[in-house]
């Protein structure tokens, strides 16, 4: 158990609270993160974002003097271990808040247990089913329908392609849903989807599909897969002879540093959707990037930004929960968060039906840099 006692301030407060002022307490937060296994990439980035977030919260003392003790444990992208961790956090470590997994499948299997044990759980998983019919579970991101509305409208209203091909990773629920939502909205606005092949995330050779797409020569190509696979797909399709001015549109995964590094110039002119615009859209975003780079020696990406935002939501909930926060008061406070500051979207976030709602922005790549796309 990588016990992460964060900075001298935390332990000092611990000693202080036990003897002196009653109300400054230590809030325990347990994180079940995918540090190994198939989702290790996303899990590690998210966990690092949370770590930096909690460090910032503790350093800024604005949670009525309370501090957060963070416990990050590896669930190896495995359902059994995730459930065991949740149980251990809730019953043995008596945590105040559990941070669930970034994979929807794991989140869906531990959410019912969190509800049963009445411990607040926040997750960056995308599936709305995680919160439906439950009171104790929160999502750090909006519903896919609301999230992907902006890029779908942008495609239909601004880019105005006639024919499109959409390619999605059929073995990952997040990408299947992203692709379906985008397709539904653009179809309603008159764009014709001429083909919808799917791949497996473990595939690396896309020549066959690339040839099939080049043969169709669509006006636009929509991708819903991991950053590296998207880059790989774009490169292989272009080398299979894709018409250079075909619009290439993606989701949150193509608004990441990974995608830019992996795709190189093939990323030029592609459109994507960002929780987080690199460089940060506000002061807090810039401090996050500086703190992250100082701690891990590399620029943060979309997933770490969401992790940081998750930590902020927890911090703000603790602050709003007043003195001596309990699981119940934190839950109530979190449910009522309205227009609080964050680093994702356009800087403000509200909790609507236990889902964090924020304005997503469409980005494009201009000479290797992610910038806000014109005409939003």
């Amino acid at each position: 158990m990588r016990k992460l006692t964060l900075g001298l301030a935390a332990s000092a407060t611990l000693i202080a609270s036990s003897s002196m002022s009653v109300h400054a307490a230590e809030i325990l937060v347990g994180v079940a993160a995918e540090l190994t296994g198939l989702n290790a990439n996303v899990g590690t980035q998210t966990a690092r974002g949370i770590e930096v977030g909690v460090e910032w919260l503790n350093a800024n003392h604005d949670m009525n003097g309370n501090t957060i003790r963070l416990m990050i444990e590896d669930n190896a992208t495995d359902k059994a271990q995730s459930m065991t961790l949740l149980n251990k956090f809730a019953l043995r470590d008596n945590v105040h808040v559990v941070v669930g997994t970034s994979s929807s499948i794991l989140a869906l299997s531990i959410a019912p247990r969190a509800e049963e044990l009445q411990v607040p759980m926040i997750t960056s998983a995308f599936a709305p089913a995680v919160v439906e019919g439950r009171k104790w579970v929160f999502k750090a991101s909006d519903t896919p329908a609301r999230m992907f509305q902006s890029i779908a409208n942008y495609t239909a209203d601004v880019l105005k392609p006639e024919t499109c091909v959409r390619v999605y990773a059929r073995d990952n629920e997040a990408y299947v849903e992203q692709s379906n939502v985008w397709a539904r909205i653009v179809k309603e606005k008159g764009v014709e989807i001429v083909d919808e092949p799917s791949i497996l995330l473990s595939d690396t050779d896309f020549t066959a599909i690339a040839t099939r797409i080049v043969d169709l020569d669509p006006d636009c190509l929509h991708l819903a897969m991991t950053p590296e696979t998207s880059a790989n797909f774009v490169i292989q399709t272009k080398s299979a002879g894709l018409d250079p001015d075909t619009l290439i549109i993606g989701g949150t995964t193509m608004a990441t540093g990974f995608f830019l590094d992996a795709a190189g110039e093939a990323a030029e002119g592609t459109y994507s959707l960002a929780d987080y615009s690199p460089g940060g859209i506000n002061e807090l975003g810039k401090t996050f990037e500086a703190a992250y780079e100082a701690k891990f020696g590399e620029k943060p990406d979309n997933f770490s930004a969401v992790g940081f935002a998750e930590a902020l939501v927890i911090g703000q909930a603790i602050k709003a929960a007043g003195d001596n926060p309990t699981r119940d008061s934190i839950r109530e406070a979190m449910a009522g968060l309205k227009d609080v500051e964050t680093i994702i979207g356009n800087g403000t976030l509200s909790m609507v039906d236990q889902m964090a709602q924020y304005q997503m922005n469409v980005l494009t790549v201009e000479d290797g840099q992610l910038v806000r796309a014109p005409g939003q």
Partner: protein
Amino acid sequence: MLAQQLFNGLVLGAVYALFALGFNLVFGVHKIMNLAHGAIFMVGAFVGLYSVTLGLPLWAAFLIAMVFTGLLSVMIDFVAFRPLRKTGDAEFAMLIASIGVEMILVNLALRASDARTLRFPFGIVPVEPFFLFGMRITPLQFVIAAVAVLCVTLLAFYLYRTSFGRQVRAVSSNERAAMLLGVEPRMIYLQTFFISGLLAGLAGVLIGLAFNSINFSMGEPYLLRGFVVLILGGLGSLRGAVVAGLALGIIQTLSVAYFPTGLTDIIVYSLLFAVLLVRPNGLFGDAVSDARVARR
């Protein structure tokens, strides 16, 4: 488009054949279901990548990767399989030892790459495609096909024209008899595992280059396809591995090109089932174990 897809299928087939060649030597010759072979292939890609990032030219990276995985494969045999060989009925035990080794290698790669997918730097290989009979061929596709053909001929020459090759085939058909005739099994195992590792490393770097993605779990899909190729072609048969590899490549590509992509796996694996019903020992396989039920 059919011609282009057939060519793509051939190249993918060459990739599968290349991977299966090394696998065939261990799984085919010694009947060891070596689940670590996918991990050795992945380590080859990583070693190739790290040599390039250290500034070495590409051909040096290939050599280093091949020698590294060759020695790694020999070490795995020495540490994990040889102690088990002495205990007689060790077919299952070796399978589990290979699972253990695979877990170790995957974990090391995960830690080294921080679970990230890496790629060769841009421009290390010319990307501009050239046209032949109206088909678009990228240099890498050509290199893969050429390397596959080269490896098959070299391996065939080694197996069927050299004395070492004869000894390997003798061990493959009946190890005890071969030993009685003075074949030194330790030498044979050393060789087959080295060559198998070498080919896996070569395939690793080549595939890492061609599809520009190297990560800790890239071995598994190729391991599964490698099993299908070997069983389809028939254990221990070099010809089988090549024919089945190419056939699998073409069938998979055509099914992706012309059928809903969700059916690819179903088509490929059902095909394997169908072939095994007709030929219980694969297309060219020698009777690994006679089916007792019917008269032979």
